[in-house]
């Protein structure tokens, strides 16, 4: 009995099979459903209906806006944290890092539920009644809370790899703190920013569990639309999913996620 010899080609087979059945074929099915009507005839009616309906476009805009705000807030919180952690010589800094990442290990629905209860409690206090009706605020809060670790981690790993001698060289050559930041730290941490931004921006466009539970389902984002259409009308649901896919593709392309340059330092998509 001869043991099989694994070539590189054969090692790729499991992944290729996975790719075919769980990525390529589903995509084709979505494409097919998006461009057919309920009698399975090829038709552009879903496409026309989608783009002639202001409510769908406004939902996309709102999803993008919510995702943008979430991303910016996440970045503003995560960048200093990652910077300080990466540069500090603290012995126990992994504890602080752990504290940020730890919530990820607790069930997501449980965490969102806990925040919901917290908001309810706050809203029952005097002077805080505005909270119960501010659904957009609560949604964005929940998104930020949920996706913050996804911003911190890539930033931290990228900054950790920045060579300390670069800072020294910059100081030697007469750059002050601001110049060092804008000319050394920021450009070198760009891959981390990009990957953090993609990891926060894209899911917060579709994570309708947060908008349902914290926004009391009065905030509708595009993910919810897809879910609801798939209850009764798969064709329209597929069309919405396809449009979302294109938005995602465009934003990844814009942020340079597809570039295969060396300097991405492994933190990019």
């Amino acid at each position, binding site marked *: *009995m001869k043991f099989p010899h694994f070539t590189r080609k054969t090692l790729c087979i499991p992944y290729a099979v996975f790719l075919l059945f769980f990525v390529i074929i589903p995509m084709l099915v979505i494409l097919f459903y998006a461009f057919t009507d*309920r009698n399975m005839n090829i038709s552009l009616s879903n496409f026309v209906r989608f783009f002639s309906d202001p*409510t769908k476009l406004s939902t996309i805009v709102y999803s993008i806006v919510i995702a943008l705000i979430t991303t910016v807030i996440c970045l503003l919180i995560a960048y200093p944290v990652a910077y300080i952690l990466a540069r500090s010589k603290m012995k126990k800094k992994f504890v602080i890092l752990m504290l940020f990442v730890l919530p990820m290990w607790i069930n997501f629905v449980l965490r969102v539920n806990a925040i919901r209860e917290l908001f309810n409690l706050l809203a029952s206090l005097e002077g805080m009644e505005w909270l119960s009706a501010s659904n957009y605020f609560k949604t964005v809060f929940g998104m930020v809370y949920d996706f913050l670790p996804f911003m911190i981690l890539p930033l931290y790993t990228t900054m950790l790899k920045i060579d300390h001698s670069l800072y020294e060289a910059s100081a030697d050559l*007469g750059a002050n703190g601001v110049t060092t930041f804008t*000319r050394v730290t920021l450009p070198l941490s760009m891959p981390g920013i990009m990957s953090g931004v993609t990891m926060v921006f894209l899911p917060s466009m579709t994570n309708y569990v947060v908008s*349902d539970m914290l926004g009391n389902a*009065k905030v509708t984002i595009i993910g919810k639309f897809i879910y609801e259409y798939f209850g009764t009308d798969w064709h329209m649901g597929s069309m919405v999913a396809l449009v979302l896919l294109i938005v995602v593709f465009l934003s990844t392309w814009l942020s340079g996620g597809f570039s295969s340059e060396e300097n991405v330092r492994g933190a990019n998509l």
Partner: protein
Amino acid sequence: MRFRKILGLAIAGAILLPTLPSLGGCAASEEIVLRVYNWEEYIDEGGEGAFIYDELHLEDESYIVNDDFTDWYEETMGEKLDVEGPTVLDDFCLWYEKEYGQPIRVEYSTFGTNEDMYNEIVLGNEYDLLCPSDYMIMKLAAEGRLEKYDESFFNEADPNNYYVRNVSPFIREKFENNAGLEIRTDDEGEPILWRDYAAGYMWGTTGFVYNPEHVTSEDLERLGWEIYTDSLYSGKITAKDNVRDTYFAALGVTYQNELLSLKHRFEQGSLSQADYVYEVTRIFNATDEETVSEVEPVLMAIKNNIYSFETDTGKSDMVKGNVYLNYAWSGDAVYALDLGEDSEDGEGYVELNYYVPEAGSNLWFDGWVMPKGANKQAAQAFVNFMSMPYNAMRNSYYIGYTSVISGENCEMLDYADYLYGYYPEEEFEEGEEYEEAVDYDLTYFFLGENYDESEEPITIPADPVQATCRQLYAQFPPREVIARSAVMDYYDVEANERINELWSRVKAESLDAWAIIVLCVTAVAIVFGVVFIKFGDKIDLLHPKPKKGYRLVKQEEVNDKGA
């Protein structure tokens, strides 16, 4: 080389060996598999909260089926049956094997919405028994996806036909005439009747759970459905996060006056019960364009007035006091009412009430249907087992909904009496003041809606509060509530599209100034960012002063020096 050979054999043997005994085992036991697809938490699951018949001290226990097969269980298994332990599904398997001499296994799975279930069926998942709601039964039947029940299933002479022998005549009447909905025909021109395709399981109404501390019953009666759009309880009321229930409620708001005048005519006697139900059903099932355009602003008003669209957070929001009104199915209402009372130390105790709008509401049924290709024999046996009065009690007690079973000898009356019977003379000490019990009339449920008025009414003594707004009223609605309630039909293809579009318009937000501002700001920021990254070193403003003792040199100078 030799070593490899041995290793290979060993591996092959290890893989093959365990399969050998099972090959032999398979032929001996012909276990049937029954695939049941039901709502989440919609059956007795044993354990805590289960109904134990010892609690029900009835004089005549002869109809309790578990009684004789506890003995049978003890004989065959050699141990006593733990009454608290087994679920109703375990019991079914035992019963089936005893009755039909074949082992059976139930593959039980659950769904969250009718639409989820429908998608599973369309995708080709195979089941033997499903439990959809009224409109979904109609849809599945109209699309030819269902098997009919056998003629023998309706033979009352067979002692094992528990369903037909125990089902409430009221439910049977509803199933006979499709609950007053338009009767469609299939491809061969045969009318599609519920009774051919479905056997009932649970039924109920929809209405408002409310907190009487904040909401008075006068307000409710005055406003009815309009409580949804009235500013009185703005931000303190919830709607269901699905288009069917919320559209239904919006129809109630829009056509409240019309519904009330119909009710008035019915009470005056100028409208027969049949015509009244027909009219109410027509109003609550209108999906034409004109109706949709009339309902749309109402739905918008509802959206702006409510606290949340919810699927199951409403119950806890009610108990915690975040909201005062929650539109709910009757079984969920019972659950919420129980939850409010369910604090032993009295802390957090909330008394909640249930109210069905005067103008009319939704009457719904969930029933067992068999998809094409089902194992009909086992599926019908399952339905029959669930229809034994004791099992109906167990399920009903566990989930809080009302079973369609009334019992051959009105066994469910004992159950209702056990849960809600009110005997003040026994409970109160002599001389203490108490409220008289009222006779709560359930004749319609046990004898059918068109019962002979001269017959003795079937009643239980009830607490007046229970009878008007609490669990009893929710679980066994009085006849007047039934009289003004309509069953929902399914939407045909065009209506479905229309209603979906309406719903997406309602759920979406029109573009506000702040959203556009955020977008513009980000666009500007991105442009600046790109400019900064590409041409940052060419912009003078971005070059801050160097540290003390250093001088800024131009690139050319460096080059010159180097040269």
